[in-house]
């Protein structure tokens, strides 16, 4: 929506998650809670009331024992580019510009102090990536002490979601400025908390448009696909799996259709 300031190099941050590698251990979720001051309650078993910026889903191929297969799918905010790089489903619906598409990074922001909790974005997001603060967050005992000053705790009545740890980008940019080379934000300088935390190395993060970055290579992998890609949301999060049933489970196909990675094979 906004013009890219001419002095800033445009980046397009994205993620590639190898589903064949992911073990479903949920370390990414916990690292994210810790990094982003995500609140918690005593009963978190109702997942539709539970705030998670990244959530690991369990997929099964539905086949009976012993041909059963399980695949875990960590799902952060997809940071959709939407139609023509800048119109994710959620951004254009927000009545108060509390969420915006940041063209210099391709990250969808969320200003929680601006949000007044109409939840239209939640209805617009097909991924359920947006979470509402139904309750006031409470940190029991002395737990307020572990809150990070980099990310403001949210208040009741607003939407929050994954920001690709945007504060880490800001820190990297600040560092780059301080070092006198504002353009030079390397792959290692800016990584999200979940990427770093993944003990299996299933998550890769970087500039999708920069051929020097690992994600550039990975997103062009034959087995790369995106979640509900056919809706036209244009997500910045890619998934890898060599298993066809996983591809089928991640997007809607008519009976006679095949996922792209497998349709080409026959042709």
């Amino acid at each position, binding site marked *: 929506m906004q013009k890219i300031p001419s002095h800033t190099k445009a980046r397009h941050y994205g993620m590639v998650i190898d589903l064949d590698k992911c073990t479903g251990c949920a370390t990414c979720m916990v690292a994210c809670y810790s990094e982003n001051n995500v609140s918690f309650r005593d009963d978190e078993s109702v997942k539709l009331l539970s705030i998670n910026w990244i959530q690991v889903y369990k997929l099964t191929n539905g086949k009976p024992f012993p041909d059963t297969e399980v695949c875990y799918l960590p799902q952060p905010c997809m940071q959709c580019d939407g139609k023509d790089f800048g119109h994710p489903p959620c951004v254009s619906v927000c009545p108060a510009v509390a969420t915006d598409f940041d063209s210099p990074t391709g990250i969808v922001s969320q200003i929680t102090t601006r949000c007044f909790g109409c939840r239209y974005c939640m209805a617009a997001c097909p991924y359920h990536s947006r979470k509402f603060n139904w309750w006031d967050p409470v940190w029991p005992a002395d737990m307020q002490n572990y809150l990070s000053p980099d990310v403001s705790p949210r208040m009741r009545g607003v939407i929050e979601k994954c920001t690709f740890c945007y504060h880490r980008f800001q820190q990297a940019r600040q560092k780059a400025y301080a070092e006198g080379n504002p353009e030079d934000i390397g792959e290692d300088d800016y990584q999200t908390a979940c990427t770093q935390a993944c003990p299996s190395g299933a998550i890769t993060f970087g500039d999708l448009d920069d051929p020097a970055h690992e994600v550039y290579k990975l997103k062009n992998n034959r087995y790369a696909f995106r979640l509900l890609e056919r*809706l036209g949301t244009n997500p910045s999060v890619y998934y890898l799996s060599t298993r066809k049933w996983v591809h089928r489970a991640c997007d809607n196909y008519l009976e006679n259709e095949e996922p792209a990675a497998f349709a080409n094979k026959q042709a």
Partner: protein
Amino acid sequence: MTTPAFPEGVKRCGNGQFILWLLPAFLVLLIAVYAMFRVWFYGLNQTNMNDAYGFAIWIWADLAVIALGGGAFFSGFLAYIIGVKNVKNIINFAVVLGVVCYTSALLILGLDVGQPLRGWFIFWHANIHSMLTEVAFCLTIYLGVLIVEFIPVILENPKIQKNRFFHHMAHNMHEIMAVFAATGVFLSFFHQGSLGGVPGVLYGRPFAFREGLFIWPWTFFLFTWSAAAVGPLFTATMCRLAEFITGKRLVKDDVYRLLAKISGWMLLTYIIAKSIDTIYWATVTAPARGFTLMDFYSNNPAYYGIWILIAEILICGFLPALILITQKGRENKKLLFGAAILAIIGLCINRWVMVLQVLAAPLKPFQEEWFVYSPAWTEVITTILPVAYGIILISLAYRFLPLFPQERELNP
């Protein structure tokens, strides 16, 4: 009973009876207000909404109530702009109904947002791309227009009429009512439409998403059209209900028949357009995203499956439309109001589907289950609130204001 406070030449019931009649409504209102304050004080955790159902029964009620309140704008359009004289006999009532519907709608919106104290950000920090912004602007301004339309009716109370300024005010406002009505129609067109746009633009939700014209999805036009078609039928039905309750005839039958005829043709054209839209969506829009029609109507935990679509289009769409466009159908009061009630139900189903089923339908194939939700008592009671509040306001208006110009003549 007659007093100088009542409109000239009409009879009203005694004060005791009147208060007794309002009592249940007041009780409901009281509980609803309590629920409202709970929601405001403790937050939306007092409801049963969740992250899948960000919109729930309130938003459905909101959309339905606004659509039904559309009777005010469309009868205003007919009366003041097209100049259909006979509609003027029911226009005051339509305006009161409109005021009830729209104030309720705004109240519900104020209740539904997580941070009501920041609600004004929608105006101040308006994102003009959002259908909701369009709704908020048009709705608020239109409510202003409705109140402006309502003022002269209030001023016509005999006691108030004694004040010369108010007397002139009422007169002057009547004089230029067409200007207000025109503005109202303009605003209504947009907000009814943008309410349709609310689900229609959700391209992440293939159940709701529609292609369209410029920035407006087809639902934009369908919503306006359906509100214009069914709104007057709602006005007529409510008027008939008032006749039933008061035991008096309030408008002449030809007024009903006229509204029914206009609405009938509107409804028919609407339902044809809606059918075309549905077919296009089912055969082109949805399959392009990997969905078949039945994906949206199978395994629904509420069991209604495809029947909800059949009910909306055939039973509550074509059937009432066909009844209303035939003279015989209109002549028979039972058929006429039966058809009107069907049409109203059809409209409510449409809004229900476009709000709740949109959110309930699973999108990710690995999450096959539909999302289920049942409203909390706080939601139910505040959804009933407009009814109680409507009963009170309409009763008061009927008692003290000359809503029905034909009443004197019909009840000598």
